[in-house]
């Protein structure tokens, strides 16, 4: 099958997922309200710079929004039997996972921009490079969507998927510089934060907020996020492959 055919089927799967999963109530509570409430609760100290505050909040919204959808998208299909239809169709496992991730990828920028614009206006922060911020938001969305798929592949039912995703989301939220700048954390935690994709998402968005041009750090951040995405997708395909065996 050609790459074009694979991409076309991935697109159809993504569009179907958007129809089926976008408007479920938990996506709004877990994906938007929860990170905003969480962030407001921790940022009242006023020690964070506006750029750190906005990049942290936007990244958190992307993380929670995309993972809330993706962490249950495979497991819900397994529960209802519809996943078998996808597996029986002439599409590779990677194509199927790509389609699933694309659905989460599409919602990330919507929620991120919905938060970014009012917060920027409210805090009087000007976005130095809207395009680089947008690209960072898009790539972060894809990374966290892929991460959600991996979680969903392991889970057997929805509460299990939500438990697994919280197991990753909350420690990441605290250790990636969202509430506390990474530089002010102990050395060991600073090293650990380098292993977390949220750290690179926050950094990339902050670079775009602060700099009118593309920086080396920004390029590295995006490169690492893309590597994380590839690793999550390949791992998801491997997990599904093993389940088929």
């Amino acid at each position, binding site marked *: 099958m050609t790459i074009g055919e694979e991409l076309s089927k991935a697109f159809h799967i993504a569009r179907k997922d958007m129809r089926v999963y976008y408007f479920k109530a938990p996506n709004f509570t877990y994906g938007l309200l929860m990170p905003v409430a969480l962030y407001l609760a921790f940022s009242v100290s006023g020690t964070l710079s506006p750029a750190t505050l906005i990049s942290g909040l936007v990244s958190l919204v992307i993380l929670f929004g995309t993972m809330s959808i993706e962490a249950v998208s495979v497991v819900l299909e397994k529960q*209802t039997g519809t996943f078998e239809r996808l597996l*029986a*169709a*002439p*599409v590779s496992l990677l194509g199927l996972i790509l389609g699933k991730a694309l659905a989460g990828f599409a919602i990330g920028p919507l929620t991120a921009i919905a938060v970014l614009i009012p917060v920027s206006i409210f805090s009087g922060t000007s976005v130095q490079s809207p395009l680089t911020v947008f690209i960072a938001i898009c790539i972060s969305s894809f990374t966290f969507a892929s991460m959600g798929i991996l979680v969903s592949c392991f889970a057997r039912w929805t509460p299990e998927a939500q438990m697994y995703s919280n197991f990753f989301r909350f420690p990441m939220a605290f250790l990636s510089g969202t509430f506390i700048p990474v530089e002010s954390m102990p050395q060991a935690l600073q090293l650990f934060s380098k292993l977390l994709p949220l750290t690179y998402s926050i950094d990339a968005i902050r670079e775009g907020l602060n700099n009118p041009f593309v920086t080396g750090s920004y390029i590295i951040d995006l490169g690492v996020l893309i590597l994380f995405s590839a690793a999550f997708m390949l791992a998801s395909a491997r997990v599904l492959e093993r389940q*088929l065996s």
Partner: protein
Amino acid sequence: MVGLESAVSVVELTKRYGSFAALKGISFDLHQGSVFGLLGPNGAGKTTTIKILTGLTKPSSGSAIILGHDIARDAIQAKKRIGVVPESSNIYEEMTAEQNLVFAAELYGVSRQERGRRAWELLETFGLAERGRDLVAGFSRGMKRRLTIACGIVHEPDVLFLDEPTTGLDVQSALVLREQVRKLNREGTTVLLTTHYLEEADQLCDIVAMINKGKIVALDSPEQLKASVIGSNIVDVSFSEPVDEDELRKSCGLIEIHRLGDKLRLTVGSDVDIVGELSDYARARGLRIVTINTLKPSLEDAFLRITGLNPEEAGRDKEPVRPRRQDG
């Protein structure tokens, strides 16, 4: 029309789940244009076979070739040519019937122009056109099942796999589905179906494989399988008063006796004049024979005889299947 070329060729297929062997080296060929039935009790290995043939699980050993493509090694090419209707309905309740069909067509690369046309054609065929734009969540079980089958054939597959297609359906929906299977087969689709319902297999299938405990125990046409149990006769009889079954067995030289409601099903050797024996038995005890029917062996009788199962194990309690009446 059954062709000579193989649509599906299964060789020494095994499937193990840990130490449990779900399939123990089954082999069969399914000729193009035929309807092949896989019969067996729950847990016999029917669904595992279908899952392997449709790429939903991988065999532990052996091979399955679908229209020249090995389903384990060349899965995408094989999957392009097949349609799958699983045992449970697998449609998206948050989407309309039309959207489900169009999505199924998209997965198989049906062109944009064709998707809508085929979707509405199938909605008409399956009596769902009036509800085509409604969310599936509000559909009855029978409607969902019909839509599931429509989704399985929207890309016009060469080989169609149906896992228990009529289980749980009302009589009318089951009749519609069986007629659809016949129509698809007349149009050239090769069909492999699993079923608990032996009468369904008898009506639809050219070839039947009886599977039990992961092994194929018989593989032949329904008529040949039925002929294999000739040598005995089956008689349904009811008396005006309850009778002692052991005494009846001994008096009339019966091979088997089963109670079916208010009547008894008797199996006797073909050399026994059972009508005369029963008349003598009734007269001697002052009983009246209320009804008596001699029956031809059914596929069910063949199944029970070949697998050695009793009716309960074979799932007869799910839906009784009656042998056809020969005379009254």
